[in-house]
Structures are given as structure tokens and as C-alpha cells.
């Protein structure tokens, strides 16, 4: 952060900045040298910040009208939808905002996977990111419980019951989580409390995530280290600000379409039925963004091993900087990795699909193969690939091709262009 000294011009500015260097921080953020070849996949960081703020602001307003009580939660949500001024708008933004948040975070994560952004020296950014992702899942799951519909209740029952798989203390832990002997009012109130808390934890981690990013600086599509500041970089403001803003607006159009025209398509119809502990829905399915992990959970016949497989699927990501042994970051210069990357994308989409289907017959078989492949990718393919793969030569700098240089990059770019 101490690339260069900043001296405020005004006397007051200097006085203030000596005591609290906010102006230095602001100056750092505006001047922050950013690689100029970042593509639109890099705009999702800004989009995610927008998503988080949107969720917090709409969530605050909802919390003013919502009642966290098993007998009143469902009614209070309908009260928001009907009688609170623009309550329907706030709630639909919040509900669809969760889906948009996950859509953006998946793109963000898969961008990182493609361009090797998790590799040295950015491991800490990556690990903080995984923790944020975990917290997001926890927040989303608990948020889905709050309307106290049928899917809320039964989703909460299924997920909290997973803890009973822990040997010896499992049952005790589940009772402790529930605050009773079934999902009931105590469960709802604590979920509400945690759902309110977690976004602020995420906000704190986002600050760390960005801080950790600003130490080595951004990775870039070419994946080589660049000098900062140099011909290869542009100041964050106005170049990246306007580009992120443009991408954010495009994203908001999609977001608005969901909110205004198909606000319920991403939810489950059963959640408009008030929770009834005596009636189990025909199929209990989580929200779409949790489906791949749900598929992994169900593909293992043993409950405890299933839970372990599901958690490993997430935690394995944290070990990724060390599982991927290749020194080359960007998949642009890794012809084999690029193919395995797209297979992994397809694999995760398939897992998501079978996660929504009943766990039987062909679906179960597909889920098992896809689960096995998921772990194979991280535990075998990636480590081996680093040693075996013949990578393409890297350009010396990212300006080089712009100024008419490297045939390698031109060739690589060409290949990328063909795919589009």
C-alpha cells in the first residue's frame, strides 16, 4: 500500500491525514494500478460488492417489518408483500438478490479457476474468498428458513439433521442447534439472529479480501507478473471504475428482469405454503445454488461419509493453490488444463442438475460419476497436470502484443477468439 507518499494539498487535509490517513487510503484506491488487459470476467468483484450492499440494505428494511416467530413469520412476510409501501419490491430484490449474488460469485470463482488467480502470491485472497463463500451459503440457507414456508421448514430439518451423522455427540448437537427436539420457534429466532449477523462478517472479510488483493495487485488474463505502475497498468479511476460500472449496469438489467417479471421462478412454490411439521413435501430441494453440493451429499450411500464428501468438496477449494502444481497461471497458456477446466464446469452443472432430481436410478448413477470426477479433478488431474503439461511460452509483458510483438500471445488470443 505504500507505493508512494501522498501529501494532501490543504493545511487541514495534511493535519487530518497525519492523524487518520483516510486521504492516503482514498488516493491509493483511485490511483491503484490495475492491469489494463483485464477482461469483463474481472468486473464481477465490483458486482459482488454491489450485491452484498444491496442485500444488507434491503435486508435492514425487511427486518424492520419481519417478525421472527413461528406463528407470525409467514404472516409478516405477506404483510410486507401487501401492506408495506413497496414491500413487494424490497422483498423480491432481497430474494432474487441472493440468487444474483450466487450467480456472480460462481462466475467470480470460475474466473479465478481459469486464470489461476489463486496461485502465489494470491493464496490468502483465495482462502478469504472461500471463507466468504462458505458464509454466503450459511447466510442464504438461514435466510431461506425465515419466511417459514414448507421448504424453509423441511430444508432446515434436512440440513440440521446432517449434524446427527457425527458419531456419539451428533444427536446432542442437533438438539442444541434446534433449541428443542425439532425445528421450531427457537430455531427460527436463532437463524434470524445469525442471518442478520453473517452479512456484516462477510463485509469485514470483503475488506480483508480487497486489502489482500491490493498487496500483490490484480492477476490478469495473461497471468504474468507485471510492473506496477507501468505501461501495463491503468489507474483504477477512471478506467476500471467506468468499466466495472458498465458491467454492473448490464448485470442490473438481468437482475431487474428477474425482480420485476419472474420474481418467483428461482424459488420453490412450496415455500408459499406455511410450514407444517405434520406434512412433508414430496421433494425437498435446496435453492439452485446449493444443488451441486446437495447432489454430492446424496450420491454417497452412508450419511456420515456423505456429509464428509459434501464438506470436502468445499474445503478442497481452499487447498487449491497447493493442489495445482503448475507454475503457469492463465489457462490461455495451458492447452490441456483448459480442456479439463471446461469438463469441470460441465461436471458442476451436471451435479446441479441431478441435485434437483430424485436420487434414484440413472440420476443417482450420474451423480456418483460426477462426484467422483469432481474429486478426481482436484486430487489427481491438477497435481499431475502441473508436471506433465507442455505449456505455451509466455509473453514478456502484456504491452508487448499490443505494440505488435509476441507471436505466442497472438496465437493464444486467436485460439480464444475461435472459441467465442
Amino acid at each position, binding site marked *: 500500500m505504500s507505493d508512494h507518499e501522498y501529501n494532501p494539498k490543504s493545511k487541514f487535509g495534511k493535519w487530518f491525514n497525519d492523524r487518520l490517513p483516510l486521504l492516503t487510503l482514498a488516493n491509493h484506491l483511485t490511483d491503484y494500478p490495475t492491469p*489494463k488487459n483485464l477482461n469483463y470476467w474481472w468486473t464481477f468483484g465490483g458486482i459482488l460488492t454491489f450485491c452484498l450492499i444491496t442485500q444488507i440494505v434491503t435486508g435492514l428494511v425487511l427486518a424492520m417489518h419481519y417478525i421472527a416467530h413461528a406463528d407470525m413469520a409467514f404472516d409478516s412476510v405477506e404483510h410486507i408483500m401487501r401492506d408495506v409501501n413497496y414491500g*413487494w419490491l424490497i422483498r423480491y430484490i432481497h430474494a432474487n438478490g441472493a440468487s444474483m449474488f450466487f450467480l456472480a460469485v460462481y462466475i467470480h470463482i470460475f474466473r479465478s479457476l481459469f486464470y489461476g488467480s489463486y496461485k502465489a502470491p494470491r493464496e490468502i485472497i483465495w482462502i478469504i474468498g472461500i471463507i466468504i463463500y462458505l458464509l454466503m451459503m450459511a447466510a442464504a440457507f438461514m435466510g431461506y428458513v425465515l419466511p417459514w414456508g414448507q421448504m424453509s421448514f423441511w430444508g432446515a430439518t434436512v440440513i440440521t439433521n446432517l449434524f446427527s451423522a457425527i458419531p456419539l455427540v451428533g444427536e446432542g448437537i442437533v438438539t442444541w442447534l434446534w433449541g428443542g427436539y425439532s425445528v421450531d420457534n427457537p430455531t427460527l429466532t436463532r437463524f434470524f439472529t445469525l442471518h442478520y449477523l453473517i452479512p456484516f462478517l462477510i463485509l469485514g472479510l470483503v475488506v480483508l479480501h480487497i486489502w489482500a488483493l491490493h498487496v500483490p495487485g490484480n492477476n490478469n488474463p495473461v497471468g504474468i507478473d507485471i510492473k506496477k505502475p507501468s505501461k501495463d497498468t491503468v489507474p483504477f479511476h477512471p478506467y476500471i471504475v*467506468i468499466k466495472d460500472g*458498465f458491467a454492473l449496469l448490464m448485470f442490473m438489467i438481468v437482475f431487474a428482469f428477474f425482480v*420485476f417479471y419472474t420474481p418467483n421462478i428461482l424459488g420453490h412454490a412450496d415455500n408459499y405454503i406455511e410450514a407444517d411439521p405434520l406434512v412433508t413435501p414430496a421433494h425437498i430441494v435446496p435453492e*439452485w445454488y446449493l444443488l451441486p453440493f446437495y447432489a454430492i451429499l446424496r450420491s454417497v450411500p452412508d450419511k456420515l461419509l456423505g456429509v464428509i464428501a459434501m464438506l470436502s468438496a468445499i474445503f478442497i477449494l481452499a487447498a487449491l493453490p497447493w493442489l495445482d502444481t503448475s507454475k503457469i497461471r492463465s489457462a490461455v497458456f495451458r492447452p490441456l488444463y483448459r480442456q479439463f477446466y471446461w469438463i469441470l464446469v460441465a461436471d458442476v452443472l451436471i451435479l446441479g*442438475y441431478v441435485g*434437483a432430481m430424485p436420487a434414484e436410478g440413472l440420476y443417482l448413477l450420474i451423480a456418483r460419476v460426477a462426484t467422483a470426477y469432481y474429486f478426481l479433478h482436484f486430487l489427481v488431474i491438477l497435481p499431475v497436470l502441473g508436471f506433465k503439461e507442455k505449456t505455451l511460452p509466455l509473453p514478456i509483458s502484456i504491452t508487448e502484443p499490443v505494440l505488435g510483438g509476441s507471436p505466442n500471445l497472438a496465437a493464444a488470443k486467436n485460439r480464444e477468439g475461435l472459441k467465442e
Partner: protein
Amino acid sequence: MKKFSRIIFLIILITCFQYNSNAAEKVEYLKTDWSFKGLFGKFDRASLQRGYQVYTEVCSSCHSMKYLSYRNLTEKGGPEFTEAEAKAIAASFEVKDGPNSDGDMFTRPGKLSDKFVMPYDNVKAAQSANGGAYPPDMSVLVKARGGGVDYIYSLLQGYEDPPIGITLDDGVYYNKFMYGNKIKMANQLSDGLVEYSDGTNATVEQMSKDVTTFLMWAAEPHLEARHKMGFKAIVYLIILTTLVYFSMKRIWSRVKTEV
């Protein structure tokens, strides 16, 4: 801009996945033109008023609508009864109120601020009157069923004699659109069952359409406002995005790279 086609493609893909997962057990529902679908969809006012009539005269003897008040009937984007009409409607119901200053409960004619009067005192009473089945509250019913309006519309017209080999218990009826085909609600609609004041021919199809429209409004009373605002918001965003796009091009023209 090619990059965006990829992003949009991804979004469409995910939506399709979701759509498929919701449509796991799809039956071909009966189709009709809903005036409230689409970017500019609005409710058919007359249909809403007729639908309310079907609800009160037919459905409301068993199905409650606990989230609606009589005042909602006058609100914009709804059936838009005049205030006098809605007051008359409300007054035609007996509402239990109290306790009064003597500590006694009493009944009085309904007011605009009252919730729709419930047909039964509690769930148990509703169940015992209906052979153990609870007639679901209709306030958000269309949102609580996978097929939405098409499902409700079809269900009302889906009664037929059971196929050979299927025997039904007492008080259970065969409906080709019901999940599992067995339903505890008897066929309620028959041609000419209600007499529409606007002279519309009360066929089963017409009544099904009207009451389903009414239920859609009941579940989404702000649908019209949502569509209107959505159109404005998206047009605004598209204009702003275009402006920002050109500003971006201009700013980035100082740098030798593509954006």
C-alpha cells in the same frame, strides 16, 4: 461484446436448469390467454370482479382468504370496485368483534378494514366439515402450486370419471390434473352456476378463468405496479448503460488497448 454473449448464455443455461428442475413432473395443463402475463400484463378488471363473485358464491364457503381485506377490493390494480360497492360487500358479512365495554363479544356488519371473513373458526372445524381434508387458504394459492394459474385453471375443469381399475373411497374424486389424481374437493362448477351481473355467459371455462384471475390478483396484488415499474426501470437502465458504454469507450481511447 462477445464476452457478454457468453455471460448471457450462462445465465440462460442456469435459468433453464432451474426451470427443468421445477418442471420435473409436468402435466400438459389447459391453456388460456392470461391478460396479466407479459411485460405490460394487466388484470382484466371485469374478470376480476366476476372472479370475486365466483369466489364468494362458490369457494368461500370452504376456502378462507385470510390475508385479504375488503378495502383491497377498491385498491388500484385490483377489481377496483367503487368504495360504495366495497362497503356494501363488506357490510353483507357478519364480523365478530369485541370485547365491548361490558366485556362481551358481539357481531356487527363488516367494514372496509376487516379481513375477509373466514368460513370456519379454526383448522379443526374446517377439517371435520370436509372429511378430514383442510381446504387450503386461497390468499397465495396460485404461487404455492408448481403450475401456478394454469394448474388451478385446469384443475377446476379436470374432473372426470375415474379410469377402469381405479376405485375411489367415499368423498374422494378423480381429477386428471391433481397430483396423484385423487382430490377431496368435489367438482364445484357447472354451467350457469352463478349469474354474472354483466351478462357474461357463466360457462365452467369462463368461471374457472375468472376465479383464477381473481386468485392471481389475491396472491400478487401489486402485479400491475410491478410490471409498470419494471418496464420503466429496465428502459432507464438500458439508456444509462448505453451512455456509460460510450463514456467508457471515450475514456479508454486514451489507452492503447481494447475494452
